[in-house]
């Protein structure tokens, strides 16, 4: 498996440097507490909707405990990929495994862009939705504990409608984490939040990930968010992986540091390179100047 990702990385031009970056691969596993995470593997994964092929023969392996970010243009199949990893959708072709097993609804948890809390259930009951196979009392304890971890221990008895957007998303995080999943999929979970709340949530997410050691697959539109959180950033384009970048920066990362800016430039180059060639505008130059300033 490692050989496969390694070669994929070599084949993508931007990944060359990353592949030879010192000590990039084993580090996440060292960080993951007790190796609780589940590895995720896709082999020859294809997905079509009718005649439209969204993902084509995709190969991807995320070792246990890795924090992997997926970026790509809207409609390139990021959510489709997550749904496959969660076992919500069957692949048209190829194999998906989570911890070497076919994915089930128990092997992973997902956080959506919207909190998707049940408005008719109190905050605590919403977190209880995430609990599987525990007695009533243990389940309550676990849910309260998860709420405390996201800083909402005192709001257990409230209706979701009285919470702010960021608080709702934190309840959703508690619901996702309460069953201590080995894999957490995140589909732009912070996209709808304001900039400050977003940074707060990113820090919270990073802390919990470091403590619990699950594998995290984060889909995001925000390249700087990907770089702030992930061990590895994947760019999805034309149904395949067009860039596989290892982010070998110490945590917690400082936003706007030169290391992050350099990687951000690489990713944006990859995402907008083609558009730049077609339209001889100065857009890209401006963007790059801003980034390197």
């Amino acid at each position, binding site marked *: 498996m490692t050989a496969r990702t390694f070669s994929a990385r070599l084949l993508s031009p931007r990944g060359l440097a990353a592949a030879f970056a010192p000590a990039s691969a084993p580090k996440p596993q060292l960080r993951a507490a007790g190796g609780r995470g589940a590895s995720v593997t896709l082999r020859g994964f294809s997905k079509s909707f009718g005649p439209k092929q969204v993902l084509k023969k995709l190969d991807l392996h995320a070792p246990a405990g890795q924090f992997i970010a997926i970026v790509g243009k809207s409609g390139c199949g990021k959510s489709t990929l997550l749904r496959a990893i*969660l076992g*919500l959708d069957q692949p048209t072709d190829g194999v998906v495994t989570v911890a070497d097993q076919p994915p*089930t*609804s*128990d092997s992973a*948890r*997902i956080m*959506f862009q*919207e909190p*998707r809390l*049940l*408005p*008719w*259930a*109190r905050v605590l009951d919403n977190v209880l*939705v*995430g609990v*599987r196979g525990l007695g009533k009392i243990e389940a309550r304890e676990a849910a309260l504990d998860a709420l405390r971890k996201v800083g909402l221990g005192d709001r257990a008895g409230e*209706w979701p*409608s*009285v919470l702010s957007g960021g608080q709702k998303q934190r309840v959703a995080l508690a*619901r996702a984490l309460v069953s201590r999943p080995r894999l957490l999929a995140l589909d732009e979970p912070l996209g709808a939040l304001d900039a400050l709340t977003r940074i707060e949530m990113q820090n919270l997410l990073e802390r919990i990930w470091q403590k619990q050691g699950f594998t995290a697959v984060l889909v995001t539109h925000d390249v700087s968010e990907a770089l702030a959180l992930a061990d590895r950033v994947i760019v999805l384009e034309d149904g395949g992986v067009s860039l596989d970048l290892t982010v070998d920066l110490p945590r917690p990362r400082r936003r706007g540091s030169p290391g992050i800016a350099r990687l951000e430039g690489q990713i944006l180059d990859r995402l907008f390179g083609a558009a730049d060639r077609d339209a001889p505008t100065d857009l890209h130059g401006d963007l790059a100047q801003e980034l390197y300033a």
Partner: protein
Amino acid sequence: MNLFKSGDLLAFVIPVGLILVWQALSSAGYLAPEVLPAPTAVALAGWRLATSGELWTNIAISAWRAGVGFLIGGGIGFAFGLANGLSKLSERLTDPTIQMVRTIPHLAMIPLVILWFGIDETAKIFLVALGVSFPIYLNTLHGVRTVDAQLVEMGRAYGMTPVELFLKVVLPGALPSIFVGLRYALGIMWLTLIVAETISASSGLGYMAMNAREFMLVDVVVLSILIYALLGKLADSVARWLERATLSWHPAYIAR
């Protein structure tokens, strides 16, 4: 139901005022007693019928017909609403027929119903059930269909079984719409019963009013009408109380 909470007292200002004006006009001789008897006369008629027991038996028999018809019709409408909201097959099979039958005004069935069942209980219960089932059906179906698909997806992703998904996501999501149907159906329930009892019955409030008309007892006729109004209001209050109790999560009902 805190009917007498200070805010609700405001609701009584106009009805009480109207009764006072009515009494004043009657006492001053502007309203002939054979056209509209004074409130006091109506109250006296009510007292007379209440002490003789006639009033209570008639209310009881009408309430019984309304309740049984409502349960049968509401149950059928609810069951089909759920089934057709959850299953495409069931919907394709039954919805077109239900929609077709729905376009017949159910009161137009009265002559046929009398031919079928005579004027006994079955006729009235059948009509009430028929009238009540459609609003419940339509609103249940609408409620189930418009449940947030994102929440359903969330439930699936979190490993809910179909039963759990129904009880925790679909049913609570459909409830506000079901209540709209319920309150509408309660109105139809009384309307149907009154018409049916007025046309063909030998007991009940509608019969009491028709019987009084034959003996020119205008006070009893007016009394019957007022009792209808009170019973309708009572049913609506119960529905509203249920709504408040079960939709307490809804932003519109969260007590501040």
